């Protein structure tokens, strides 16, 4: 389609846990995914503004180029295009949260009851109220989602996950598929292509959230025992109920801190995380990677899907733009994480440098309209293009 429109919201995959939506609520989501796509184009003006006036003005004043991120931040902050784009983007993200929360909070009890019905008597959901939410998650509401992943407004609440599930389709404008599982599908395909003989018996997904990206792995390896852990009970209740309704029975959802799990040494063949580490903290990231190393069997595989890595040939401007979400969409660890070299992170946990690997991944999408046209500008922080790092443990 020449206009490269976003898919209408009702193309989202249906399942028993998906919140009920009214006509207006769906329309509101349609408006927002169009607005998101539109703003990716408005963002292109930032480069023009930077090259045509921000940088030249700085040079005139200082007789040299902009050298640091702080200088760039200062200089661009007073540019009117950067201001309007930033405020529109922030506003769109807030509206997305407002739209999602107004859908799920009005039916909080109903959603809770639906989850309870699907989860009842199942040994594949293991909650543990003694698990503490890590302090870095208590310190901020990541991607300005009020209450984050753990807050329970009613007993047995699942609304944080219901909000996440219904809204991620809007934020990504449908580019990661009807089940929002484009990342999980991509990693599954990559593993099958590159390790055709790999027959994992036990797989761990850390920071599984509502589990959408672990399900493609569960589908590809139906005989494997899959354990998905998270500290947020609402995510687990909803994720488990969603998986049950979608017909999965080989995934156990457990409430557990990835930095201190209860599993035995060398008990997993594959440990996966998706969009997880950039929402941890500067010390926890090491503790969690140590735990990954401890839990992995010799010869086992670990992979972590993350935001694109900074490269040396990336301009200061691009790095700055890629970091916009850190302070403006409340992803504070996103930019701090760039100070850590993933290879060193893994090496410090006991992996061998020569076993480190890094690959690029692009979402697999089952929607025709969701395909990102080659000519579409990359929406930093939203694009279905990721960096995957990991290692085989030897």
């Amino acid at each position: 389609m020449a206009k490269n429109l976003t898919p209408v919201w009702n193309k989202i995959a249906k399942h028993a846990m998906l919140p009920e939506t009214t006509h207006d609520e769906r329309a509101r989501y349609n408006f927002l995914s169009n607005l998101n796509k539109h703003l990716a184009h408005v963002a292109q003006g930032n480069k023009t503004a930077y090259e045509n006036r921000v940088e030249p003005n700085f040079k005139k004043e200082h007789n040299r180029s902009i050298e640091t991120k702080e200088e760039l931040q200062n200089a661009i902050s007073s540019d009117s295009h950067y201001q309007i784009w930033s405020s529109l983007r922030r506003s769109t993200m807030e509206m997305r949260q407002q739209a999602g929360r107004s859908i799920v909070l009005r039916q909080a009890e109903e959603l809770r009851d639906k989850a309870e019905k699907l989860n009842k008597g199942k040994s594949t959901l293991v909650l543990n109220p003694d698990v503490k939410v890590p302090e870095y998650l208590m310190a901020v509401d990541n991607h300005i989602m009020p209450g984050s992943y753990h807050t329970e407004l009613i007993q047995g609440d699942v609304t944080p996950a219901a909000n996440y599930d219904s809204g991620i389709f809007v934020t990504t404008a449908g580019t990661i598929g009807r089940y929002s599982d484009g990342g999980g599908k991509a990693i599954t395909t990559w593993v099958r292509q590159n390790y055709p003989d790999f027959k994992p018996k036990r797989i761990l997904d850390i920071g599984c959230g509502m589990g959408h990206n672990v399900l493609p792995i569960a589908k590809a390896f139906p005989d494997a025992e899959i354990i998905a852990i998270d500290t947020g009970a609402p995510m687990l209740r909803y994720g488990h109920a969603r998986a049950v309704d979608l017909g999965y029975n080989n995934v156990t959802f457990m409430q557990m801190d990835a930095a201190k799990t209860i599993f035995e040494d060398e008990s997993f063949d594959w440990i996966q995380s998706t969009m997880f580490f950039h929402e941890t903290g500067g010390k926890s990231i090491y503790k969690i990677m140590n735990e990954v190393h401890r839990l992995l069997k010799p010869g086992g595989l670990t992979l972590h899907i993350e935001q694109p890595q900074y490269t040396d040939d990336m301009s200061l401007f691009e790095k700055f733009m890629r970091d916009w979400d850190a302070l403006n969409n409340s992803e504070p660890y996103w930019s701090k994480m760039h100070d850590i070299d993933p290879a060193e992170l893994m090496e410090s946990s006991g992996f061998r440098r020569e076993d480190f690997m890094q690959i690029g991944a692009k979402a697999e999408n089952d929607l025709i309209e969701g395909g990102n046209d080659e000519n579409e500008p990359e929406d930093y922080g939203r694009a279905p293009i990721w960096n995957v790092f990991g290692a085989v443990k030897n």
Partner: protein
Amino acid sequence: MEEKLDYIKLASNKSKGKRPYFHDDPAVERVLNITMALAGELAVARERMDSIERLLEKKNIVTREEIENFVPETPEQEEQRQTWHSEYISRVLRIVQQEMEEMENPDKSLEEIANDINEM
């Protein structure tokens, strides 16, 4: 029965951390946010009208005049209409609510939180 959530107010809550403002005058930001919410609601109304017009066209059961003269016919209808307005206004004036929440509960900056988190 547990008490029902005040979902209208809760839906417009702010998130943790001081909200970034991008314009020189925060008033511009505020007005812009209200305007964008209105833009969204206009799009929503437009989509609904589109559905209605298409259905009317398809079934040919309601005339334009009937729509023009319609007023709520039962107390429930009245309440539904007023609830809609209440939700609508809370949605459009989200930023004002959030600024009040910030005033009542001054927050750390994301920079401070990032530094805190880096020590966690």
